[in-house]
């Protein structure tokens, strides 16, 4: 079991000794059952940290935010505080940190990884919880071993089988404890016995090409282009997103000519063609980089099964090249490396 008090003590100690600038973790939210991300700057605040199956967010996304703020401070000729930032990381989150390290977005000495084990289980899918009678009114969800969650509604506690509430991404998870860490709370669990990896995408690709296109046309038609899937993704760190014109950088130095001739690959209209371009471009840009935290799918307000796009590419990477994003930050990246034993001999 993760000892939450020990985790809080560790975070407080890091801050007290001035070894880190801040600790990014989870605290109780103000609305509903879910925990929410928090950034602790003072040792005294560490007691608000929590760890339970409602800690859904991949906090590596805030390392990206922090890095961008540090860079912005530098451009304003302010000397940024060079101490590292600590982050509470689940298995998937730590793989995201590994990719950021591999891509030299971060340096290893700039981050302290406080690993937490998912207790052989994982995090919940709030929609699965809300679909149950009274589930919307739950005030707490706790781990109850690997096979169940303890759900508190009012004064009543109910044990619900883990399988019934687990997020789909967790069912397919291959490493429910962070391999990359500076300290680990809880046990390393390797035997899981839930779904096999890539089960959902294997099932989805069994359909005919026409049926698959009809399905995705249906989903792209429903897309609101709120960009939550991209905004929540720790790998989507481009300051300008090629398929989102709202991010195009405009400075006092940008000329009228540049603004007028800038290519909009993707219009703002939320139509099937534009939304297909947006999602497929994003998926391709994540090939060999997606660590399947499933945050894109979780945050989608209209439930587009976005993981299928990303896990399809990761399955190809795994089956063709035995490549797993985030397995090791020292490994050569999928798209920038070549081995003699790689398939597709025509490349030579």
């Amino acid at each position, binding site marked *: 079991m993760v000892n939450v008090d020990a985790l809080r003590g560790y975070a407080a100690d890091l801050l007290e000794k001035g070894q880190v600038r801040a600790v990014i973790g989870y605290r109780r939210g103000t*609305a*509903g059952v879910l*925990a929410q991300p928090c*950034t602790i700057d003072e040792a005294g605040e560490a007691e608000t940290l929590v760890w339970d199956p409602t800690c859904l967010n991949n906090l590596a996304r805030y390392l990206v935010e922090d890095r961008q703020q540090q860079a912005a401070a530098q451009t304003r000729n302010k000397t940024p505080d060079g101490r590292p930032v600590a982050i509470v990381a689940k298995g998937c989150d730590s793989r995201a940190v590994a990719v950021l390290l591999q891509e030299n977005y971060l340096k290893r000495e700039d981050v302290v990884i406080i690993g937490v084990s998912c207790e052989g289980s994982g995090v919940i899918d709030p929609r699965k919880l809300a679909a149950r009678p009274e589930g919307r009114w739950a005030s707490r969800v706790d781990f109850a071993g690997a096979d169940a969650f303890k759900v508190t509604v009012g004064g009543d506690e109910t044990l619900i089988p883990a399988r019934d509430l687990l997020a789909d991404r967790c069912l397919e998870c291959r490493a429910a404890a962070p391999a990359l860490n500076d300290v680990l709370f809880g046990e390393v669990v390797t035997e899981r016995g839930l779904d096999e990896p890539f089960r959902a995408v294997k099932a989805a690709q069994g359909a005919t090409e026409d049926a698959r296109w009809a399905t995705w046309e249906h989903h792209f038609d429903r897309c*609101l282009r709120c960009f939550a899937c991209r905004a929540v993704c720790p790998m989507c760190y481009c300051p300008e997103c090629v398929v989102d014109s709202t991010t195009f950088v405009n400075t006092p130095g940008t000329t009228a000519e540049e603004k007028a001739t800038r290519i909009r690959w993707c*219009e703002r*209209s939320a139509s099937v063609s534009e939304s297909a371009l947006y999602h497929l471009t994003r998926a391709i840009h994540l090939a060999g980089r997606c660590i399947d935290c499933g945050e894109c799918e979780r945050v989608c*307000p*209209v439930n587009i099964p976005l993981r299928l796009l990303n896990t399809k590419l990761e399955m190809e990477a795994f089956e063709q090249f035995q490549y797993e994003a985030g397995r090791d930050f020292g490994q050569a990246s999928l798209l920038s490396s070549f081995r003699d034993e790689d398939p597709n001999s025509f490349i030579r």
Partner: protein
Amino acid sequence: MEKILSKDRLREWVDALDDCEVLAPAFADSVWNYARVEAETVIDLSHTNTINPPKQFAFPQREVFFRFERADGVPRLTPTLPDPRPTVVIGVRPCDGRGMPRNDTVFSKEFKDPYYWARRERLVLVGLACNQPHSPNCVCQSVGGAPHAEEGLDVLMTDLGDRFHVKGITAKGGELIARGGDAFASLQAGDPAEVARVHAAASSHPQRPVAELGTVAEAIRARFDSPLWEEMARHCIGCGICTYLCPTCHCFDINDEVTNPNHGTGERVRTWDNCQFPDFTMHTSGHNPRGDLGSRLRQRVAHKFLYFVENHGTQQCTGCGRCISECPVGIDIVAVVDRVSRA
């Protein structure tokens, strides 16, 4: 006009509206949303609330203003004012109903927006009172509404078990009920008391208070430059969920979408815009007065509880709770307003 509609005769009423586009909530892709009622559709009004509010039926996410082309070197514009069939939306929750008159105000006060009103004038909203809150984030009563509020609706239905109490609120609503003919029955002696009982029971569920509602506007004005905004937005990811799903957010962008640059062919379109996006208030100079997440959160909250009050005399938030329930990082407008009010 008040009538009783047996649940097994709802379909009969809908079938009588055969010249209308009829939409009702449907549960698909694990989410409630409005869908067209087809011949084979089984209408299920057990919905919580739809993920999209009904604003899209007057203010769609994409509206074509006109088409343009160049013929023999001469630019030519073709108007594209919408000319929809009458559209009946069934099952609108009262919080969303209250959103519509707020949108109407925005699209008519200084300038009557012809595109909005071409759709709006043919839109009929058939509300369904909530017999219980759908989520802990339902706060309709805390912002001046009620689970059976009539404002903005043409018809209000109340679920009485095996039948609906159906009340025509506007002339448009009365006409719609009249078209149902024999599907409707008259009220029996005990019905008014039963409706009152159901409404009272629904109103008795406690809701989270929106702190000192009367003074929220003043508090936001006083704390305009407070560091609280930045702190509360620290984990905002800048997505568009809160405003796109809001029943009263109405900001839009206008772009020319060129389909063939050689022939100067394309469309001028209006699309939803969003105060949480980085280019929302971007000036051509590169200066952005809402250049960080804190000022964007303030923009959203102040629009609901300060600017709208100043401009139109009422709050813009109708308490549906979508922005709270769907926020990926737990930003909670009730808590935000509370903190600003107490600061």
